[in-house]
């Protein structure tokens, strides 16, 4: 037993020390695997960044009320009378006698997307004053909040960076009226930072919404108060709405695009992985055949089959790991934090976000590279072990 372990260690080390002599063909396998891993990580980091931006928007102690059956704010409708009932139902936190609840409108405006200046659907949210107390994470970083009753708006930091014309002091023309940009806010990188905010009461006539809203955001008394709140709304015959925990609502909003990108990434990763594995197989076959005489000699002086198999596998796995590490590092260096914006098909509106190469993705990358290396090594290793000693020694 000990002898076997000893043999394995000896041959594997010998092998790895010889690796530089086969640098050319080994490099080919490493580059192939690195490329595949890099792209897998890069594509999945798009999905990870997008999901994180949207999911982090919601809090567990807040709730969103939409019309029954609506899948997003965009397609929801809540009348003014219903909104009043929803804002004052039991379960909502009250401060100084007023409910921490905000009835909101969610529309899109056409703004040029930077750098190309092509038109993009930028979300504009009309809010009530309580909205600021509900979103405690919102902080003004430039300028000031809009004044109630005026055509002023504030822009999220991501929106201000991604779309043209959102500097403090600039003017936007919406539906024949001029609107002043008076401030920039931050919410710690959440979806809200992609939005513009203004007074809901001023937005209603601009978009001809009468006294109607699309969503009600409320601060719950506690996380547990959701059940009570939902029971009240569900059992009020005057209402036709569905209440959802804000964190659940936002987790669902990223579903479509995240699923699309993830499935694309996996399909591409698997196909390319197969291509790279065949490349690795070639490399390892070449490695084995260039060492035919060496392996035969080892066998002739008493080394057993298993150590030979293991040594080839070790070489393949090392190549895989090196490729995986290079690929993962390259993807991390090039794509982590890369900022872009896309349209979230569920809300029809633009979401600015940054790619996120998460530790999970790096682990996945290296594991995948390892698997590719193993696949590349197994057949050549068996071939090496099966070499007939006498003929192999004669071979050139």
């Amino acid at each position, binding site marked *: 037993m000990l002898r076997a372990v000893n043999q394995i260690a000896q041959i594997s080390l010998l092998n790895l020390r010889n690796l530089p002599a086969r640098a050319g063909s080994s490099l080919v396998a490493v580059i192939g695997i690195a490329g*595949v891993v890099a*792209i897998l990580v890069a594509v999945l980091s798009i999905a990870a960044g997008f999901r994180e931006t949207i999911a982090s928007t919601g809090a567990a102690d807040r709730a969103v009320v939409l019309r029954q059956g609506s899948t997003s704010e965009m397609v929801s409708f809540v009348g003014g009378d219903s909104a009043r009932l929803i804002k004052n139902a039991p379960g909502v936190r009250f401060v100084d006698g007023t409910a921490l609840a905000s009835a909101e409108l969610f529309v899109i405006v056409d703004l040029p997307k930077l750098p190309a200046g092509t*038109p993009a659907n930028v979300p504009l949210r009309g809010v009530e004053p309580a909205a600021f107390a509900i979103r405690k994470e919102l902080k003004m970083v430039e300028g000031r909040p809009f004044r109630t009753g005026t055509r002023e708006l504030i822009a999220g930091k991501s929106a201000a960076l991604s779309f043209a014309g959102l500097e403090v002091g600039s003017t936007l023309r919406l539906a024949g009226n001029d609107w002043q940009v008076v401030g920039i806010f931050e919410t710690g990188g959440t979806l809200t930072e992609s939005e513009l905010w203004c007074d809901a009461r001023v937005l209603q006539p601009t978009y001809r919404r009468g006294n109607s809203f699309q969503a009600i955001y409320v601060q719950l008394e506690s996380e547990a108060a959701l059940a009570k709140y939902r029971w009240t709304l569900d059992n009020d015959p005057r209402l036709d709405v569905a209440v959802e925990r804000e964190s659940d609502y936002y987790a669902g909003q990223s579903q479509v695009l995240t699923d699309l990108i993830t499935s694309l*990434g996996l399909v591409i990763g698997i196909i390319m992985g197969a291509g790279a594995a065949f490349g690795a197989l070639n490399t390892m076959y070449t490695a084995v055949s260039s060492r035919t005489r060496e392996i035969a000699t080892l066998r002739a002086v008493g080394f057993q089959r298993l150590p030979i198999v293991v040594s080839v596998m070790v070489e393949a796995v090392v190549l895989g790991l090196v490729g995986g590490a290079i690929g993962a590092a390259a993807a991390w260096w090039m794509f982590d934090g890369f900022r*872009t914006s896309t349209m979230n098909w569920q809300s029809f509106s633009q979401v600015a976000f940054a790619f996120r190469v998460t530790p999970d993705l790096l682990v996945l990358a290296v594991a995948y590279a390892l698997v590719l290396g193993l696949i590349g090594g197994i057949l050549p290793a068996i071939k090496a072990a099966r070499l007939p000693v006498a003929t192999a020694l004669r071979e050139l």
Partner: protein
Amino acid sequence: MKYLPLIWKNIWRKKARAIFTLLSIVMAFALFGLLSAVRAAFSGGVELTGADRLVMVHKVSLIQPLPFSYMGRIRATPGVEAVAHATWFGGYYQKPENFFGQFPVDPENYLSMFPEILLPEDQKRAWLKDREGAVVGRRTAEQLGFKIGDRVPISGSPWRRKDGKEAWEFNVVGIYDGAEKGTDTTAFMFRYDYFDEARARGKGLVGWYTIRVDDPDRAAEIAQAIDANFQNSPAETKTSTEKAFAQGWANQIGNIGAIVEAISAAVFFIILLVAANTMAQSVRERVNEIAVLKTLGFGPFKVLGLVLGEAFFLALVGGVLGLMLAQVLVGGVGKVLERFLPIFYLPSEAVTTGLVIAALVGAIAGIVPGIQSMRLPIAAALRRG
């Protein structure tokens, strides 16, 4: 021709290597085909738009509705041949995951505006007779199991019914196909007259207009003239060519598609380089065989031909098989992705481009060892072996 058996034997000299090289080329081209389909899907069918069609939306944003009464004024604009309208309905069938585009339209106008929608004549007549009738694209019909004669409820639409019922119910009276393989066959269209009468609010409003002009070269000019009609009205408009509109939509999705494509393309070429390197290497290993051939009287160009032929064979066979695999994959992956990407097919230009790339790979892999073989000094090569 008589050298084909020799090339064939050379290729299979090392069976495992030839097979793995071929397979890695196959995989690279399968990926290439798949990415071409993804690109076509992300560009939202920009290539398929009609050159003589314009799209008119509300100037503030395309979610704002336009008055139905604009129809007559648009048609009266010089250069306008026909007008059709549609509205985003935004519902789903049974559960939110089953989403697809639903639009109330005026059947006759709409079908004549979009000749790429192929609806059998009898089904069209049935639609004109049934106010609650709807026609659905083949893809959605197959996915959700809709058949002619079914009564299907659509829920979740922002458009409420004035009778207070949650779901809108329609009779499926027709299933349409697309004239081209890129035509979107996921839409569900029903009658605007029924929709307008039954909805609780927003009567007399439509989502957008599609306009056909008599002279595509004057499209931009006519678009301006149409918009001028509605300047300073409560609902100002923005008219652009259908192509520009589709392009704008693709731009909204942004550079995500481009990034996926760019990095995949990089890896495509890496895999091809790996394969080309292996092919070149297998020739280098046979230097003394080539020297023997030359001793036997094979001229330099015959030797070059043998080596190039081998490389071309592997690259082209790999390319063809890969593109065939891509065709299969696009079908299979399309099933998975169809709820996100309604248009998913392998564009025919991609096949042509793929074959050109395959030929280039063959040339690159074969040319260096080929020329080396041509110039090979026989005596030195024989001694080296």
